[in-house]
């Protein structure tokens, strides 16, 4: 199995309503930046894996609406209906198995364009749940009450992560700077789905992310210090209503698979970029991955994470992008000292059903 590097990363600006661009153009911003970062052209790419969701794009087989911008005509193109970090795992496999040399991985979403209540409502089982009219926030609220009741985390723990994410948005030029907020303001905000408040959910955003993957040979040609994909893992848990929210066995499996491929042993990575659309889940996932919640905004989600403002589908790939910037030492005002190893995490599905982990490192 060949070694695979990330040789280029790019993101659009993620904002509330990107009414200035159609979604293919939104994706172009990320692709142009990733290609320029890698120092190659679209013609040098030999395959593409895209991530998008038809319901958000308002079009069936919506990957065909970005086939031109990803340059996949007459090339192998695949698409996953999940977070973009899943597309990264797929793109990694294509190169690791020796069939391809240079791959483009993308994710895009405009949460602003569809009706979120309809889109999220369509995720429910049609036989025994959907007619009840619940939404994704209710699923999160039901879970949050169980997590808080267990004593593992408190609403204050979750609010502190929201505060840190909002502060970090000010030093992340790819997201909209959010108004600073105190823990008390997060806790006292109007309720979303009890016990959760409106700031417990990551903000509604439009945005895109793109990445160039390459074989070791190509990577060493393009860069003196490529970022290596040292391990990957993914697993899907039970349907939300059949899974207690404290059951993180899918996350465990994804992390263990990824770390087992590395030579890290039990060493703790230098940084964690963790995805969770709801703040109590971020407490859970970050802790389970090995991060310290008190490090939020530093070695935990220096980018600010999902709560700094990314769309669904894109968040996981954005986490990988931040890890690449940090490992290269190019993270500007939020650069961590001596970051060599990073874990990036993504999640997808109602009630955080599927988890993805990518282990990244620099060095020979």
């Amino acid at each position, binding site marked *: 199995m060949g070694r695979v590097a990330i040789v280029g990363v790019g993101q659009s600006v993620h904002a509330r309503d990107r009414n200035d661009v159609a979604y293919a153009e939104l994706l172009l911003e990320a692709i142009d930046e990733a290609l320029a970062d890698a120092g190659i052209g679209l013609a040098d790419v030999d395959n593409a894996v895209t991530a998008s969701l038809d319901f958000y794009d308002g079009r069936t087989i919506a990957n065909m609406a970005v086939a031109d911008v990803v340059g996949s005509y007459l090339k192998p193109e695949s698409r996953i209906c999940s977070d973009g970090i899943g597309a990264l795992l797929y793109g990694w496999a294509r190169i690791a198995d020796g069939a391809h040399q240079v791959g483009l991985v993308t994710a895009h979403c405009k949460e602003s364009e569809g009706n979120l209540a309809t889109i999220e409502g369509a995720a429910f089982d049609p036989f025994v749940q959907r007619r009840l009219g619940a939404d994704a926030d209710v699923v999160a609220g039901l879970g949050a009450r169980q997590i808080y009741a267990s004593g593992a985390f408190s609403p204050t723990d979750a609010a502190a992560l929201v505060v840190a994410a909002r502060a970090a948005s000010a030093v992340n030029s790819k997201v909209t700077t959010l108004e600073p907020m105190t823990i008390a303001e997060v806790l006292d905000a109007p309720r979303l789905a009890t016990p*959760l408040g409106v700031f417990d959910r990551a903000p509604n955003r439009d945005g895109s992310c793109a990445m160039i993957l390459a074989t070791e040979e190509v990577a060493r040609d393009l860069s003196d210090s490529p970022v290596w994909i040292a391990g990957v893992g993914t697993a899907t848990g039970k349907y939300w209503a059949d899974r207690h929210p404290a059951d993180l066995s899918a996350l465990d499996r994804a992390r263990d698979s990824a770390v087992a491929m590395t030579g890290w042993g039990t060493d703790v990575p230098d940084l964690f970029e963790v995805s969770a659309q709801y703040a109590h889940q971020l407490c859970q996932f970050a802790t389970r991955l090995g991060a310290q919640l008190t490090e939020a905004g530093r070695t935990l989600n220096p980018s600010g994470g999902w709560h700094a403002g990314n769309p669904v589908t894109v968040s996981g790939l954005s986490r990988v992008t931040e890890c690449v910037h940090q490992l290269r030492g190019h993270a500007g005002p939020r650069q961590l000292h001596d970051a060599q190893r990073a874990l990036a995490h993504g999640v997808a599905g109602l009630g955080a059903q599927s988890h993805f982990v990518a282990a990244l490192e620099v060095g020979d």
Partner: protein
Amino acid sequence: MTEPTILHQKINLPYRYTAGDFHKAFLYGLANRRIVGSRCPACLTVAVPARPFCPECSAHSGETMDMKPKGTLETWSTATIQGVTRTYGLIRIRGADTVMLHIVDAEPSTLQVGMELVPRWSPEPVPEITAIAAFIPT
């Protein structure tokens, strides 16, 4: 051109879902004011609502079984969705290894984990989850 051009369209997507034997047993059970579960022939997990595959081991469900129309509240959440404020709960029907989503009709401040709930049946005997209007404290 300074103003963005926004096209407003609507996709009308009617759908017919074939329920299959196990969901059918559950839904027609509701129409007769019964709560029907299914038991896994391999690991004996009891799932309510009845379903074709075991949520624990993925085996094809073996038989359906009538459950007592009683359950306990495991968690709840109150939300206002499209102008309607409701409390949703996850309810464990007595004897079940799973929980089911439904509406809980009670003052949220009176709710407690483990409290007993019973269905309040809708006057309409329809084979739909809405045959139970809500679960209410006993």
